[in-house]
């Protein structure tokens, strides 16, 4: 059971003082900071973030109860709301006056519902009558109005990741008006209506902010609506409806996540997965909106995995076992326990929970820390050696290589763009990021294939898997690295499957390369045809003429070597001594004579004299020639 928890809490939670009568705790989602405000700040404010080693601690005057407190991006300016009308600011920029200044909302009779930082010096006030977008001028200790919009607001949600502000309007609250912020500009996006399960009569506020969340999933902004089960409609349970928020154009309802149960829920987005916590069953389920369900209608999703609890964790200091209570979910648990955790997805347990390997790969390839898990899935899959496994292996390889290919293409496009010089386009090209999902040939070789071929599996299966991998690479037009070919050859040779090897080479499944040709050459003693295969390969490479000569000479095919050199036009530059040495070794005096004559003629042609030069080191051979054939047989220099 222990290895079935696929959700866990981060190892190092942010710890802070429990909320109490004297201690108020606030959480800022934008900076992921927890504020502990003691006695209105008079006895100290402690700010802790997830990565902050040392917390920020300071004091401020107690000017009444703090309703909300947040740093701007980069902890430059602190904003504190104490009254329904105004927000107070404190500079945290060094060399700026640390004095507080206050700003009152412009709209008359409006109450400030809250505020959100959209930049280090830009802030939005959300009032019940509209929004006001300001630039904070810390040196002048004033705020400059950038833009405002009047609209009746029930409540609001701000998504710091995407800088989108969502306002609930109308009496029922189900018409949502999004705004996007970027570098001092505020743009109004098209509003949209959330379909309520039932329309109350008389009309009253029926959509709660607790049922709405904004998140960025796979780089797109979605508004998630937790649609509770209603008895009137015959739906099987609650569902989460995802509205795709576009910068331009209307917002579309595009995904429906089936929860198949009822009760209280909470939503999280972790690693592009929508995590839904269910209170009564104390379990969570995850959805991947990119995972298509074959048996469901378009964009209706079932949970990827069966529901599981979050892995129980120990509170680091006390050692007490903390059962994640699913009480009022993540945020409230924070306030109560004095710890702030982050939710993480553990990938290893998913391997056993998701039987369909193709689907599992789709799922894993989209996760952040997936590499080692994917590789271990591959290893496991091959070791099993179950029947009917090969199509699965093929599917998995294809999925891996699809991602691999996309990365290679992006990389190549980037290189091309860079090489074409710093043109005006080059700025738009960012170096492609190599995510963990990019599993290249060396990963596969090191972690999966080389170990696999050592295993005691039926050799048919080993070969089939290797060929399947090579097929998949070829299908995606990825150049296969020669070490994979070597692995194929090694395996075939090990099992004496030479004819198979031969056929692969014949159809150029194993692409030509010098290392491969040399490997083949070394097989000659066990499999003589490897010699011809190797020479052919060298010849096709057309950059290996020297190697061909060496091979032929080593086989004592001196004439053949010479003919070859001549056919490629290199006979004026070859070393005479090398050929004469080889000819001597054959103990064939006629052959020696022929070779000797050839070089005498070459000397004559090149230098006008048949004699060998000092530098050619052929004295020994000249002496031998004289000894065997007599001095008068030496070619005479031309008489002038």
């Amino acid at each position, binding site marked *: 059971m222990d290895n079935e928890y696929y959700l866990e809490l981060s190892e190092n939670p942010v710890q802070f003082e429990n909320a109490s009568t004297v201690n108020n705790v606030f959480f800022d989602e934008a900076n992921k900071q927890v504020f502990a405000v003691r006695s209105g700040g008079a006895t100290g404010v402690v700010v802790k973030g997830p990565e902050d080693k040392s917390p920020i601690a300071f004091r401020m005057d107690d000017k009444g109860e703090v309703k909300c407190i947040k740093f701007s991006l980069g902890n430059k300016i602190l904003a504190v709301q104490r009254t329904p009308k105004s927000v107070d600011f404190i500079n945290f920029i060094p060399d700026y006056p640390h004095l507080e200044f206050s700003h009152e909302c412009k709209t008359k009779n409006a109450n400030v519902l809250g505020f959100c930082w959209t930049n280090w010096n830009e802030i939005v006030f959300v009032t019940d009558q509209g929004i006001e977008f300001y630039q904070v001028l810390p040196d002048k200790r004033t705020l400059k109005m950038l833009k405002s919009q009047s609209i009746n607001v029930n409540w609001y949600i701000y998504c710091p990741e995407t800088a989108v502000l969502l306002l609930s309007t109308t009496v029922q609250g189900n018409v949502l008006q999004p705004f996007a912020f970027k570098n001092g500009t505020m743009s109004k996006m098209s509003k949209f209506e959330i379909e309520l399960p039932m329309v109350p009569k008389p009309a009253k506020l029926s959509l709660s902010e607790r049922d709405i969340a904004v998140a960025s999933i796979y780089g797109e902004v979605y508004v998630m609506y937790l649609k509770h089960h209603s008895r009137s409609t015959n739906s099987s349970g609650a569902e989460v409806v995802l509205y795709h928020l576009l910068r331009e154009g209307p917002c579309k309802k595009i995904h429906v996540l089936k929860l198949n149960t009822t009760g209280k829920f909470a939503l999280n987005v972790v690693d592009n997965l929508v995590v839904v916590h269910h209170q009564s069953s104390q379990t969570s389920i995850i959805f991947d909106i990119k995972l298509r369900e074959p048996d469901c209608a378009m964009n209706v999703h079932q949970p990827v995995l069966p529901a599981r609890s979050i892995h129980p964790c120990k509170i680091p200091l006390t050692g007490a076992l903390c059962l994640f209570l699913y009480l009022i979910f993540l945020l409230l648990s924070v306030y109560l326990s004095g710890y702030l955790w982050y939710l993480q997805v553990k990938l290893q347990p998913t391997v056993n929970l998701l039987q369909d390997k193709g689907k599992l790969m789709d799922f894993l390839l989209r996760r952040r820390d997936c590499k080692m898990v994917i590789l271990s899935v591959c290893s496991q899959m091959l070791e099993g050696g179950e029947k*009917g496994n090969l*199509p699965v292996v093929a599917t998995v390889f294809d999925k891996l290589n699809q991602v691999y290919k996309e990365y290679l293409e992006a990389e190549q496009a980037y290189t091309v763009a860079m090489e074409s010089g710093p043109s005006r386009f080059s700025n738009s090209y960012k170096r492609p990021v190599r995510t963990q999902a990019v599993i290249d040939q060396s990963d596969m070789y090191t972690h999966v294939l080389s170990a696999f071929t050592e295993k005691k599996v039926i050799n048919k299966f080993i070969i089939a898997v290797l060929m399947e991998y090579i097929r998949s690479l070829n299908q995606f037009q990825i150049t296969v690295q020669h070490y994979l070919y070597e692995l194929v050859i090694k395996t075939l040779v090990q099992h004496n499957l030479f004819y198979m090897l031969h056929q692969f080479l014949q159809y150029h499944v194993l692409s030509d390369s010098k290392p491969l040709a040399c490997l083949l050459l070394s097989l000659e003693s066990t499999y003589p*045809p490897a010699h011809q295969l190797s*020479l052919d390969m060298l010849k096709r490479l057309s950059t290996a003429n020297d190697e061909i000569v060496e091979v032929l000479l080593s086989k004592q095919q001196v004439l053949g070597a010479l003919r070859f050199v001549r056919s490629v036009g290199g006979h004026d530059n070859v070393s005479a001594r090398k050929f004469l040495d080889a000819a001597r070794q054959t103990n064939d005096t006629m052959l020696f004579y022929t070779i000797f004559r050839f070089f005498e003629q070459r000397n004559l042609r090149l230098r006008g004299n048949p004699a060998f030069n000092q530098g050619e080191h052929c004295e020994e051979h000249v002496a031998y020639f004289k000894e065997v054939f007599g001095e008068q047989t030496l070619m005479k220099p031309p008489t002038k």
Partner: protein
Amino acid sequence: MASGMQEKQYTPSLLSFFIYNPKFGPREGEEEKKILFYHPSEVEKNEKIRNVGLCEAIVQFTRTFCPTKPAKSLHTQKNRQFFHEPEENFWMVMVVRNPMIEKPSKDGKPATIEYQEEEILDSVYGAVLRQCYSMYKLFNGTFSRAFEAGGVELLRQKLEKFFYRYLQTLHLQSCDLLDVFGGISFFPLDKMTYLKIQSFVNRVEESLSLVKYTAFLYNDQLIWSGLEQDDMRILYKYLTTSLFPRHTEPELAGRDSPLRPEVAGNLLHYGRFLTGPANLKDPEAKFRFPRIFVNTEDSYEELHLIVYKAMSAAVCFMINASVELTREFCEQLDALVGPQLTLLASDICEQYNINRRISGPEKEPQFKFIYFNHMNLAEKSTIHMRKTASVSLTSVHPDLMKILGDINCDFARVDEDEEIIVKAMTDYWVVGKKSDQRELYVILNQKNANLIEVNEEVKRLCATQDMTTLKTVSCSCFNDSISVMQ
């Protein structure tokens, strides 16, 4: 008959064919026991004994000159005898009548017959004899195994059963250089499609674990063999000269022709069994497949041979003969292989057409060639049109084929690389090149060309001509660089 006044040509033909083992009847009076098979069977007993005795004597006699290499053939005016000892003490003898010309009676003189003793080649008919044995062995295993299993009686039965039919299919008049090579024609294919086939074979072997070996052919050309080279060579010969031609005739037949096999209402795929049941739906269908023997040198395996075909793609599945094949298995195979193979066949066809389009329209080339690589048995001929069950059609004059055979004999004599250029009658030049393990024979028809021009032409041809088959040109490095496919 009709050509009463003309010369009449007789092609070489089979006079007799016999198999004997001198150890089976060593004593006098028991000579008949030596004879295991004799064709024609109606020959009188004493003549059989005499002929066998003569062969035995010749072999014994020639052994005194070279104990390891006794005589292979005996040339006489009227016929030529070929001897082959495929297994120890088992001798196969084939007697071929020389081709002859009958000159009609003239001026009252009787008709004369002129034997053309030098027209037939030892290498060609020696190879035919060896092939007879290989084919027998493929379907029956070795002589000695049969003898061990059921004594002389069983062996005699087997020989009788096999050779009675097989000898009828020997067409000695159309044997030529290709019989000497006994090569395999490989289907040219791009890497990706080849890998797809690999993948298909591997998947089928995985899901039908009974399948021990697989071979894949397209258009009667080999693409993949799980069998070893020598076994594949003879199986290939059987498939392409016997099994496939028998089945192409019905395929080519018209829709309403009675020859056309009944399509079993299966519209999902085009797969069907070439061996075994003709129609799976037939409740009377028998699930018996031919048995073949492979790896007779070591593991000696007996296998069922299932040949399954969809469009132009044919796959041989070989399964251990000890397993009984059932209807269920055949249905499973049909359901698994049929759709995949149909798809694959159309893939290959498409790819093949693309490649052909790239290589440009086919022009009638100025030359014809035969290529053979001893190393992988790859063979390619533009001389032979089409192999059928009955005859192999060649597009050149038999005289030229004879020259090719002669050159081949010359090559066989020495190990060295060689090149021979022959000016034949009727303006033809014949060029033979041998380099390492490869042989190339080119027939050029160029009027008034001289030796140098022919040499240049062949060189150019070797260097540039993409000699068909596999896409890339691989070259031999020796000699004047033969560059031919594979």
